[in-house]
């Protein structure tokens, strides 16, 4: 524990290494286990997984219905699930409704579909403001201008349910394959701070 702050990066690094070393020496953890488990979030688990889920929902009405009814079960069909996504709920954007997800108390985020959250999602500015002035945050901080006729629904992930935004399928994507559609789905569009890409880019 630090007696003075802000702590330097050198100090944090030393403390992290000290902690890991002591646990290794006591035989309580394995460095291979840590590297492998943490490494999964650098390789296999990230927004590309959620993008596949969204692309399937855009392509398959039956899947979309199940996703909105029970997102965990729908994701399990695609072999998607796991830690911090044991109970997932998908909320659908439409012409009338825009959903956006936040965690005001910490940084809860649906890891199995989006991976680990970006810093801005975890830091105080987004967490404090999104519940109070979502329209302003979306416009000023993310360049997303939500029309004043559109309802904004903010989901504060205060319990163990994790929310995924199902963005609207962009126009001009008729006939695209799931793979092509997935390439349009951005992380931000699944948090609700952005829109999917369009075929024109």
């Amino acid at each position, binding site marked *: 524990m630090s007696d003075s702050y802000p702590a330097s990066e*050198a100090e944090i*690094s030393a403390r992290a290494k000290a902690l890991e070393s002591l646990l290794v020496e006591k035989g309580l953890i394995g460095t291979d286990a840590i590297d492998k488990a943490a490494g999964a979030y650098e390789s296999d688990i990230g927004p590309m997984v959620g993008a596949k889920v969204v692309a399937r929902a855009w392509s398959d009405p039956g899947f979309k219905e199940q996703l909105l009814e029970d997102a965990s079960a729908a994701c399990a069909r695609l072999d998607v699930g796991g830690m911090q996504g044991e109970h997932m*709920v998908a909320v659908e954007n439409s012409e009338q409704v825009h959903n956006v997800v936040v965690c005001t108390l910490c940084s809860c985020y649906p890891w199995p579909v989006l991976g680990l959250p970006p810093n801005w999602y975890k830091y105080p*500015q987004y967490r404090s403001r999104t519940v109070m002035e979502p329209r302003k945050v979306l416009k000023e901080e993310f360049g997303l201008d939500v029309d004043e006729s559109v309802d904004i629904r903010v989901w504060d992930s205060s319990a163990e349910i994790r929310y995924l935004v199902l963005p609207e399928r962009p126009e001009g994507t008729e006939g695209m394959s799931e793979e092509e559609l997935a390439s349009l789905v951005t992380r931000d569009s699944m948090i609700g701070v952005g829109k999917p890409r369009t075929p024109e880019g």
Partner: protein
Amino acid sequence: MNGVHDLGGMQGLGGVDVEGNEPVFHNPWEKAIFGTMLATMGQGMYNLDEFRHGIEVMSPAHYLTSSYYEHWLETIEKNLIEKGIIDRDELDARTQEFLKDPAAPVPQREDPELAESLSRLVRSGASTRREVSAKPQFEVGDRVRTRNVHPRGHTRLPQYVRDKQGVVERVYDAFVLPDANAHGEGENPQYVYSVRFEAEEVWGDSAEPREVVYVDLWESYLEPL
């Protein structure tokens, strides 16, 4: 507790700093801290609610001037020391050694069994949903008021929605109650509800038009209206 972590509606914190092409981990220690959390919480050395509460009790000035993974390091250290798994003095002494020789490596240890169980944890999760015999007290559409409470311990009832009227939007299953589980008082599972609040109810004249906020709340946070 009414801590600095409970940020909903706080003002004056500034703009959102969006980093382009952000890496998952910015440096080796972020990855080490993340992995250490998985390995220690994953083996049940402390639970998720104790982990969260360990961050909440940081001093507000420290909380606001430290990085996300420093928060994690604080709570992992605190929990492991409280559980008697590591000792403060040995941790401080070892930290000094690494400060003097930052390039010194962490000793390596293979633990295939743990590697397998952590992979399973990542893929399957660790649900805190529990079966309870009671029926939910509230139904979809019920009007409720959140309690005006200010517990000194851990809670997941944010301040900005205390003593506010809302409507039950969804009834979820029962989950371990953080308020009890963070303090060694057992799991005490209760139903969780998604409660819908109109922005005007929460923010008064400062509310933006056409906004609603949904907050997931345990049953004991609510009273019928």
